[in-house]
């Protein structure tokens, strides 16, 4: 297979997935924030909260449309561009995707219509329940998608079946409760909550700067900063949990992120910044802190974290082991039922490393005929690009910590300083709006680029996974997606800006009626609670 095709397929997947994830985090977080706001409305019965709910729900809607539209591409792209991958692991990977549809997406999409069109057709409580169902649906969606993705990082609960030439599920529970998936899920949805909180904070700050819609803006900041603070803490804690699970599930990824070329004595030092050099396998101008990495990565003082050089040696050993499995597999395929039991036993003993033999397919059709040099090349291939991972990770973590500071500040001002915000802080809140998106995209980059050269870690190399299409096919769809997505992005941004400028839709009569009833009650003229 030509490399050009695989690279183009990767580019297309990366582009469409990252584009999809521009909309997902806001959907995840804003759905919950809107549900919280609507709950406040149901409990207090004050029209201002209804207005707040409807306003953020409208922005949610503009964003949601593109999230759904770009999600369609994702659901079908595995089959379109990654057909060997789909065949090879569909038995496991397909299940969470289908369950996502059954359990989560159906609920989210069915109720989202009522959320926008049901205000006059439902009671207040019914409508609030509908809004919560949309929020729960979108968050459950994330759960199943991350279970699927978690399996690509840490393929548990499955085994290779020589008869069907693919991986098959052995334990659904292992796949579902995969520790990598669970940590990633909480990390990812928390990141979505932070994104939405920063968005609400920034837009509200914009109104305060402009000196309009101040009732809406102050209250929104109150909700967003409290929710955002909790979420920002959760992102960092669960990010650390992901790092810890990587220390025993994806050692190479961890070593690459931290540019740990050699295995150090425990506890290993942490490189804060530096310039990783993949050729020379060293980091120039490194600023190191002793002990820190060992403690974060292993939560002990005595366990070692293997460096890249050691892991490459292990990969080389696994490749040789995989060749034994491959040889047995070829016998099984030729002889089928007539295969001697001894060969089947050999296969089972070594099949865990079959994927490593497949790394050789880049260089030679039959891995059994690989030369020593090719085995060394394939072993070197197991090291992902260190410098991009090293830097992407550091920027993401830096942004993650800065969100805690931002949220803490606004939470403090809104809780203990009567919602008085200095002007500079409002400008800052507007400026910081794009930051969570940058952090989220970098997070995905670290996770998926760090998984290379595998689509499924240790099981299936990326180079083998792509469909047998032509470069022309890919160029047509890639051009199509780029053009199409760019236009949609411009339209979406245009509408977002237009509707943010326009501000909330105010039903003047409704607000006045409520206000009159409220004042009447204050004067003691009536005991009735103000009607809507």
């Amino acid at each position, binding site marked *: 297979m030509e490399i050009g095709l695989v690279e183009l397929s990767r580019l297309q997947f990366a582009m469409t997935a990252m584009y999809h994830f521009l909309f997902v985090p806001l959907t995840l977080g804003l759905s919950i924030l809107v549900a919280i706001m609507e709950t406040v409305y149901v409990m207090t019965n004050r029209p201002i909260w209804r207005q707040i709910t409807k306003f953020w729900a409208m922005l949610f809607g503009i964003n949601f449309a593109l999230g759904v539209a770009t999600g369609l591409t994702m659901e079908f792209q595995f089959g379109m561009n990654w*057909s060997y991958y789909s065949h090879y692991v569909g038995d496991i990977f397909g299940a969470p995707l289908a369950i996502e549809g*059954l359990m989560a997406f159906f609920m989210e999409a*069915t109720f989202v219509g009522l959320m926008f*069109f049901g205000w006059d057709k439902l009671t207040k409580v019914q409508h609030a329940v509908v809004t919560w169902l949309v929020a729960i649906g979108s968050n459950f969606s994330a759960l199943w998608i991350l279970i699927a993705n978690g399996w690509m990082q840490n393929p548990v609960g499955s085994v290779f079946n020589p008869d069907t030439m693919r991986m098959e*599920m052995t334990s659904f529970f292992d796949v579902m409760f995969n520790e990598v998936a669970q940590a990633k899920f909480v990390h990812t949805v928390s990141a979505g909550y932070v994104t939405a909180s920063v968005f609400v904070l920034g837009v509200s700050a914009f109104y305060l700067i402009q000196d309009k819609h101040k009732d809406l803006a102050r209250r929104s900041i109150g909700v967003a900063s409290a929710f955002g603070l909790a979420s920002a803490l959760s992102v960092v804690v669960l990010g650390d949990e992901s790092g810890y699970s990587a220390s025993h599930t994806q050692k190479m990824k961890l070593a690459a992120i931290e540019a740990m070329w050699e295995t150090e004595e425990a506890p290993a030092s942490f490189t804060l910044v530096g310039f990783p050099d993949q050729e020379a396998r060293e980091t120039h101008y490194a600023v190191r802190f002793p002990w820190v990495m060992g403690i974060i990565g292993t939560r002990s003082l005595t366990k070692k974290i293997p460096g890249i050089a050691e892991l490459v040696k292990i990969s080389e050993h696994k490749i040789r082991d995989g060749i034994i499995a491959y040889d047995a597999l070829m016998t099984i395929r030729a002889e089928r039922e007539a295969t001697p039991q001894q060969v089947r036993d050999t296969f089972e003993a070594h099949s865990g490393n079959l994927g490593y033999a497949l790394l050789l397919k880049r260089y030679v059709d039959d891995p059994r005929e690989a030369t020593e040099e090719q085995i060394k090349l394939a072993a070197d291939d197991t090291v992902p690009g260190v410098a991009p991972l090293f830097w992407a990770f550091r920027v993401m973590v830096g942004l993650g910590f800065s969100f805690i500071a931002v949220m803490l500040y606004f939470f403090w001002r809104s809780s203990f300083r009567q919602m008085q915000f200095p002007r500079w802080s409002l400008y800052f809140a507007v400026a910081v709006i794009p930051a969570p998106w940058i952090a989220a995209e970098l997070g995905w980059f670290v996770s998926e680029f760090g998984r290379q050269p595998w689509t499924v870690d240790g099981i299936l190399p990326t180079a083998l996974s792509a*469909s047998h299409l*032509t470069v022309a096919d890919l160029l047509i769809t890639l051009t199509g997606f780029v053009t199409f997505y760019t236009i949609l992005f411009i339209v979406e941004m245009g509408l977002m800006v237009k509707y943010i400028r326009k501000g909330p839709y105010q039903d003047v009569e409704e607000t006045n009626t409520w206000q009159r009833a409220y004042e009447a009650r204050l004067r003691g003229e009536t005991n009735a609670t103000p009607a809507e």
Partner: protein
Amino acid sequence: MILFEMIDYDVLRVIWWVLLGVLLIGFALTDGFDMGVGALLPFVGKTDVERRVAINTIGPVWEGNQVWFILGGGAIFAAWPPLYAVSFSGFYLAMFVILAAFILRPVAFKYRSKRDSQAWRSSWDWALFVGGAVPALLFGVAVGNVLLGVPFHLTEDLMPMYDGNFFSKFIGLLRPFALLAGVVSLSVLLMHGAAWLSLKAEGPVAQRARRIGTVAGIVAFVTYAVAGLWMAFGMDGYALGEVTANGPSNPLYSEVSRGVSWMSAYAARPWIWIAPVMGFSGIAMAVVGMRAGREVSTLLWSQLGIVGIISSVGLTMFPFILPSNVDPKSSLTVWDASSSHQTLFVMLVVTVIFLPLILGYTAWVYKVLWGKVTEADVTENSHSVY
């Protein structure tokens, strides 16, 4: 876990073949009228308000309906991985066109009425037209190609390979029979969309819908009949050699021959006549109902017609799912293209729990939204509806 052996592998495979049909039918029944309304939009609505009425009949439900399509993709991936791998990469450019059309749709719904400009709105109306008509046509073309056989083969590693260059792979799909099948699906979904509009809209929109729907129904009836005759006399079907219903999912383990007619299925299993009978009677009664101005029953007949057409394709081909015309041995069948025994079982458990829930809350949503969308609804709530 031995739990999954409670149900035999071959039984699970048949259940999942039925569920595949259920998902396709769910998609065609619900998103089908969305596509129909989209394709009818420029013709049933002459003024902006009329068009907004048509759009708002499906406005609150199209998102949920579209999930049948997405779930269909996910379920094929989980239950029929080889089908997912071969079909979507084999129909690569056609799939891209369908996706592009479907991506246009949600955006068009949401964004159309958010600006007042005439040019803006009419551009999105045409986007809705494309988003409805193009997939409605191409789904039929795809089914036609499946019946004819698709040019793919599997290597020993079960890697799907396709013959021909990218251009012939796309244009090559537009074979005469496949185009005929495309006309069947387009016309039947136009009829279905018209039946929906006649129930949910009123005045000129509903009238125009009934008029176009009648013509579409007649076209659907005739083309469906011609397609049946074509399959009986004008093309070869496929036949599976020795069947190992419980064997591993490896398509290369079975023998497939060509030459027999697809229609021999009707001699072997006469009860399947019920499918085309439903198809023809559903369409005919929907046309009659539309002319008589009946609303609810017309939609139900139209649904029956769609159920009949889709089941007739599935039942005629059984056990084939995706035959290969260049290497029949690679053809995918119910017995050799499924997931593992355990995955099919786990997915069945999940489906048994969630599908009734989905049907339940979908029904509730439709109940809440029951009633006609009027011009007044649109003008009075101009800021909140589509």
